[in-house]
């Protein structure tokens, strides 16, 4: 078991999400950054569907109540075990009563903790991903207990550090395809969309990121139709909304572009201080 000593800003359990329930309006959810979460599970030889803890901007603390192995990837929030700094992107052996803490944010927005065999929180509609009104909790709170299976050190596994290209955190290019309503955009609007630098507004969460910059338009709403993570909607006020993992299954704003899966992962690590540009790929 793992006990939450300090919950941080927005900490939740996530796996690859709830697939196949659009017909009853249930969002997919799942980890915001597949790349980093997959990495933690790879390091531990877990299934890539194993549930991990998603931490937003650090500031949390956990107590391990059983021996196991963990891996941390994604944003670097200066993790320590019993106040001793540990590396990210590496297998780490933890013992009963060890305390894992996160401190100063070095880079990134979201980091992932995987445990050998995965965290074993409740499964609802085929997934452990937290989501309001589907799972009992949508956030981890102080004193919450999460189960995992005890695991004693496997000496055959390597402890080698995996080098991750900083590009995942520093890239300012967000690749996308044309969205279903792309053709509504005239040349000038397309120029703005692909020339201008964009940034996240403070109105950003697991459902979607509202951007600061404006693309003026007089588009009408569309008949409500599917939206998926990575869909970029344009509102009548010209604001763009990039839908993320907890997005609704349908929406009524024109869908002008669709991010690639990798770009969703990259965007999940951006703060309101970062600038980026959209780039259309064929």
């Amino acid at each position, binding site marked *: 078991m793992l006990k939450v000593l300090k919950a941080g800003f927005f900490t939740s359990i996530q796996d690859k999400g709830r*697939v*196949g*329930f*659009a*017909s*009853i*309006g*249930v*969002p997919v959810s799942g980890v915001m950054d597949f790349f980093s979460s997959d990495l933690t599970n790879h390091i531990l030889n877990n299934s890539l569907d194993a549930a991990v803890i998603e931490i937003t901007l650090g500031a949390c603390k956990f107590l391990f109540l059983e021996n196991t192995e963990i891996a941390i990837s994604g944003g670097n929030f200066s993790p320590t075990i019993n106040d001793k700094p540990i590396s990210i992107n590496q297998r780490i052996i933890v013992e009963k009563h060890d305390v894992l803490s996160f401190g100063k944010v070095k880079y990134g927005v979201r980091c992932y903790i995987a445990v050998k065999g995965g965290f074993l929180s409740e499964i*609802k*509609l085929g997934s452990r991903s937290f989501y*309001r*009104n*589907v799972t009992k909790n949508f956030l981890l709170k102080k004193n919450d207990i999460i189960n995992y299976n005890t695991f004693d050190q496997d000496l055959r596994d390597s402890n080698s550090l995996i080098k991750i290209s900083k590009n995942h955190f520093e890239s300012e290019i967000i690749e996308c*395809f*044309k*969205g*279903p309503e792309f053709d509504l955009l005239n040349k000038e609007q397309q120029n703005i969309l692909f020339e201008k630098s964009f940034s996240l507004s403070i109105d950003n969460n697991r459902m979607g990121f509202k951007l600061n910059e404006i693309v003026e338009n007089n588009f009408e709403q*569309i*008949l*409500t*139709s*599917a939206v*998926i993570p*990575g*869909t970029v909607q344009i509102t009548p006020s010209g604001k763009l909304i990039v839908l993320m993992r907890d997005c*609704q*299954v*349908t929406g009524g704003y024109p869908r002008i572009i*669709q*991010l*690639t*899966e990798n770009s969703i992962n990259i965007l999940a690590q951006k703060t309101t201080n970062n600038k980026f540009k959209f780039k259309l790929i064929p």
Partner: protein
Amino acid sequence: MAENLTYKRFGEKAILIEWKSVIDDFILNDILIYKEKLLVNKNVDFIDLIQGYNSLTVIFRSYINDFKKQVSILKTEYKSTQNIKEQKYYQWEIPVCYDLEFGIDLKEISQKSNLDIQEIINLHSEVVYKIYFIGFLPGFLYLGGLNERLYFDRKPNPRLNVVKGAVGIGGMQTGVYPNVSAGGWNIIGKTPIHFFDLEKEVTCFAKAGDFIKFKSISLEEFYHIENEILKNKYQLIKISTDA
């Protein structure tokens, strides 16, 4: 089935299929039949299907390497004429208490529209609504059939907390909030029925293609039904229909 459909690539793993841009029962039925063929025949390797008023989005298991080929497989499915098992569609009777205690915007829309409150209740509860699809929130039904006299604009400032079970009108639409949520619709009543219940074997009893009929009930009946539901004794009324 001579609909001229368009097929658009929607990111790495999805294809959006679109019908003419209107809200229409014929289109809904065509979408439901198409969906059924995909579900029954299993010739397309999809992991989910997302319905809209005039669209069906196919989410594939993996990256679509050959878009044209996938579209041609989908078109073959659409054209196939084999008999698919007829889905059964139901009409669900949903008790709604339109008392002013729950219908917190009834007075305001009554004043704006020159309809008295009883007329609003009658117009809202006499119609059989068709469920076009479910979206927005888990268990939120998109209903067609609202009487034009009940078209009321959304509130300029959405409420942060609309209660679970609230029945509202937003523009040309009416519906039920399946859970507490922010929302801008005019609230005219409340139902004790749960539209999204993970404790039940069937999480959401209603499906696209089914019908909803609201039935006006008193405050006393509301609390009675609420209590029956709590005790797991309440039996929702459903009628078989020919879709």
